[in-house]
């Protein structure tokens, strides 16, 4: 049931994007997020879509994996579309029925907002989650936010927490699936009934899931203790991050793309 969800799952590969230094990837991620939110012009957005697809091809991620990543958030995308379309009431009327009024501004804004969200997930997964292992990502964040250690901000701990959370996503998805199957076989029904009834039904999944997460956390911390984990002080790395010339070139090209998108937006 839940096994197809691949948000947060790493997709193994050896593409340029996979090999790019995670610090650069993190910076690129921020750049593109800014770009995504600045774009309003349809041509610029068109360019962004083309660019994302080029990015996907560069990262050698099969469309099916991409689809599974985007699929789970489609309901939210649709919800945002509908809400925007219904609530924005200025602009030219396109359709109206009783109290429902759909205008061209509303439609435009709805399309824009839902496309933004979609592109956000799309780009985030390609640049970060699908092509970067959680440990690499947390290493990058630890390095990038390193200076914050000076003001006693627990940079390493935050990074570690994040990477463990990501590492456990597949495990917890499997577990949720198991619990749901067990409750279904005891007569639970998650597919029919009113929204409220369905939400209540999920208690039968959430309670065991929480209980087991605490148990897992407990066992994992014991295992980490046993393996001499003692915070970030004095830790070494099997594959320390180091920046190659290729990294720099790829980074520059991709950041120029982000800048170019903004320029297109402003110019048109």
């Amino acid at each position, binding site marked *: 049931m839940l096994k197809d969800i691949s948000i947060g799952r790493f997709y193994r590969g050896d593409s340029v994007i996979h090999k790019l230094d995670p610090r650069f990837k993190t910076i690129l991620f921020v750049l593109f997020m800014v770009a995504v939110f600045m774009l309003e012009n349809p041509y610029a957005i068109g360019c962004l879509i083309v660019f994302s697809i080029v990015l996907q091809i560069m990262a050698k991620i099969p469309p099916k994996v991409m689809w599974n990543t985007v699929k789970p958030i489609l309901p939210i995308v649709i919800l945002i579309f509908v809400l925007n379309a219904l609530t924005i009431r200025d602009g030219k009327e396109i359709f109206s029925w009783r109290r429902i009024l759909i205008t061209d501004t509303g439609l435009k804004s709805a399309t824009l907002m839902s496309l933004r969200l979609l592109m956000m997930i799309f780009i985030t997964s390609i640049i970060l989650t699908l092509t970067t292992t959680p440990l690499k990502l947390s290493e990058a964040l630890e390095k990038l936010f390193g200076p914050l250690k000076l003001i006693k901000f627990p940079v390493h701990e935050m990074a570690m927490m994040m990477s463990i959370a990501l590492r456990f996503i597949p495990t917890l998805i499997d577990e949720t699936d198991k619990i749901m199957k067990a409750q279904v076989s005891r007569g639970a029904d998650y597919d029919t009934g009113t929204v409220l009834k369905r939400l209540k039904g999920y208690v039968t999944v959430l309670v065991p899931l929480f*209980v087991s997460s605490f148990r897992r956390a407990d066992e994992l911390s014991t295992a980490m*203790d046993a393996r001499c984990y003692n915070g970030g002080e004095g830790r070494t790395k099997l594959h320390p991050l180091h920046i190659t010339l290729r990294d720099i070139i790829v980074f520059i090209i991709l950041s120029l793309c982000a800048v170019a998108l903004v320029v297109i937006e402003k110019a048109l």
Partner: protein
Amino acid sequence: MDFIASARDVRFSYSDSDRYAVDGASLFIEEGSYVALLGANGSGKSTMAKLLDVIEVQDEGEIKVFGIDTKDDARFWDIRCNVGCVFQNPDNQIVGTTVEEDVAFGPENIGVKNPELAERVYKALRYVGLYDRKESQTAYLSGGQKQKLAIAGVLAMKPKLLILDEATAMLDPVSRDEFLSLAERLVREKKISILTITHDMTEASRTDKVLIMDKGKITMEGDPREILNDVPKMLEAGLDSPIYSKLLWELKNVTGVDYPVDSARSITSSLRYLSTRFTGVRINMPKEKHPQKETLISIRDLSYRYEDKGPYAIKDINLDIKKGELLALVGRSGCGKTTLITHLNGIIRSEGKGKIEYRFGNETYTTSSKRDIKKIRQKVGLVFQYPEYQLFEDTVYKDVAYGPKKMGLKGDELDKAVREAVKIVGLDESVLEQSPFELSGGQQRRVAMAGVIAMKPEVLVLDEPAAGLDPKGRREMFKTINDLKESGTTIVLVTHYMDEAYEHADRICTMKDGMIMEVSEPCRMFEDKEELRRMEIRSPYLRRFLEILSIRLGLDPVSRKNLLKAQSVRQAALMIGGADA
């Protein structure tokens, strides 16, 4: 200093408990030895392991590891870095997303630098045979591979003492054997001392020394050949003995003639003794069981895959489940057993032409009809592995009542169903108002089972119902299962324990790579050794012993054939001892 680890009069209680988990335990582990720590669930074994690795610190007493006091704050890191631990649940000890990242986690923590770091990681991976998968994702490894990965992670730390805390409990027999051979190689080749905490008596009998823990104390220690073979004492401690000593003990019960203590020490000595007493006995035909004929569930051409165009999880399954029988389903992890049983109550439904037909009373139902599904779910109860992880209500009563309530039971009828179910699984009614989360693991499992039994299923499907329980818990679980069967419930049992399948099943069904290899009566299943190897199935220990025994006793072909029909130690003893008298 001979001892790599020693504990004297250690007491320890967890901060949230008023009971001592370890209560005056003393133990000594010699350098380079392989020691087993046995005991019932909750006897304090795992706590002892944590104390030795300084994950917890004792309240009273003294523990020294490598000659260092665990209370020495300045040096406890020297202990922790040199003690490696592998725990029971493979998922909850992996930190890395990829195999090599995970192995590197330990050495990175203690600041090992490249190139030594890389060398340690890859050497450890080669040693356990996972080097080819160094870039694989840890989440997608099999259980056996995950445990090997855990060992690699420990090896990369170059430990002097390795603690295995029920590390093989979740593995199938083939993976378990591989894991144990690996552990034995470590002792032999790397001179690493091992302390293994286990419920598996066969594993314990392969060690140099056995420690038995009961209520926080070490109650017995010594040569496994002496300790384990003392059958009455082991049973009393909630444990078990190897097959050969149990057979001697049962023979004594049957014939009234005691056996010399020495004869129970090993397979060889027991065979020698048995051959002096019972050579050439004639063994009569055991009473034939009447095979069940009436088909309750018939599965036809069932195939299923989790992804379109992906590999088949099960393929072309044809199987009849007979009314009132106990059918055991065996096969390696990932062979499709769980997928198959999940079909049995329509949680997943097959594609294409495959179908399952049920005959309850005079009615026929199929999973292809949406209307029948509800009825099928009530009539076919499914208890998944570790069902205690699915409890959710705040009282046992409510949790057990959840299923029957969904089936439409109300009032007195519901109350009766709940109380009956709790009784069947052997729990006292006093637990009904307690929170399920306050109970012990074994009791929680029973509550979860009661939740399914309360729906009054005609068929009960149990996926590893005894997993993780101590030998006594396993025996009680099988008593409950046999009681259910006696009362007319049809049972489908998925298990990794061949001896239990052999003893309790009417028929055994073996699976491999999603397909059914063979379905037959237990005594027929293990006749062809070649076939077993092909199916990746291990013969039950009892069967292996009886095969050797029949040769040593020089049995005539008919007697031999009859003896091999014995499905339990007790039956074998009755056959041999009965013939004697």
